[in-house]
């Protein structure tokens, strides 16, 4: 018996006569290729058998059937005025919700916030004023020190100048006094 003459599908489904069934059975034992093919067919039959039975549809639906009619939202979506009305309604609803949510927000203690802001502002202003006052005092101290140094230098220079003038004046009068003493002495000596 050759492989091409073996009807494996009929053997698998049990549709062969007993004599042919025996000869196919013997062939399957002798031919590995047909034996493998038989195993694949058997696996496929087992898989098909595991699928659940399903009722075929009773009838075929038509386009004019109700099942193809647009739903209510599709009607609105496809209608311009309806879509406009729906948008307006949605907007109105959003406005109402927003207003309600706004009124429903917890009450804010503005006095406390103002007091806190005032404290912070006062603290910052105080710090800035303190810093500015310190800087101004430092500049003032520097100016005073500079002025004092300049005044001291000027006073010292003036004092030295006046002292030198006084010394010169003293020397001058000492010389003149000596001159008059010598003249007086000479006059007294000549009169003797």
């Amino acid at each position, binding site marked *: 018996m050759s492989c091409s003459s073996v009807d494996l599908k009929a053997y698998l489904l049990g549709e062969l006569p007993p004599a042919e069934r025996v000869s196919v059975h013997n062939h399957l034992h002798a031919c590995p290729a047909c034996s493998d093919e038989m195993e694949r067919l058997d696996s496929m039959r087992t898989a098909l058998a595991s699928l659940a039975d399903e009722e075929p549809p009773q009838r075929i639906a038509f386009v004019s059937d109700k099942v193809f009619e647009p739903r209510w939202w599709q009607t609105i979506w496809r209608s311009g005025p309806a879509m406009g009305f729906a948008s307006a309604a949605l907007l109105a609803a959003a406005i109402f919700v927003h207003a309600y949510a706004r009124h429903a927000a917890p009450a804010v203690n503005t006095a406390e916030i103002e007091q806190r802001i005032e404290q912070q502002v006062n603290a910052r202003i105080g710090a800035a004023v303190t810093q500015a006052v310190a800087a101004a005092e430092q500049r003032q101290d520097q100016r005073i020190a500079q002025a004092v140094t300049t005044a001291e230098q000027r006073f010292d220079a003036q004092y030295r*100048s*006046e002292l*030198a*003038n006084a010394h*010169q*004046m003293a020397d*001058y009068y000492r*010389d*003149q006094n*000596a*001159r008059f003493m*010598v003249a007086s002495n*000479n006059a007294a000596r000549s009169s003797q």
Partner: protein
Amino acid sequence: MKAIVAAGLLLCALSTGSMADKPRVTRAMLEQVENGLDVKFTAIWPQDPVEVVGVPQSAYVSGYGVVFMSKLNLAPAAGITPFHPAIRPDEIKRTHDKKVQRVEQLKSAMRSILADAAASLDSVPADEQIALGVSLFYWNWENHDGLPNQIVMHAPKKVLLAAKTGGGQAAISSDEY
């Protein structure tokens, strides 16, 4: 006897030596010239005389000659006093200009004074120098620009005598400091 003669010779030698050490120019001769300096300096500008500051000084240096020294204020001006505490710029300029103008005339007068001193100092050898130094007095506030602090003139006595008789003025050395 020999001892007496030797002692006599020694005494004569000592007396001769001591006479040789005596100055040729006496102090009285110098004083006479010193006293004349005041008059001669103040006579340069009789209407607005210079001021002689202090006492003129002089000395005879044996082997060199005579040196006279005096201090002059060429343009007397009021110094700084409680009644005149500050000097104005125009006062400084006026005093400076006046002194600058007077310096040359002072130098001419100094040459004349040197010649007169040479004529009066008979005992000074003719080859010895006669010098006159004039220190110029300035107040501290004055402007010294272009003005000397001291003028020194000197020349041998014989040159000064020649100058007095009308020649040799150029041979008088003049230095300014």
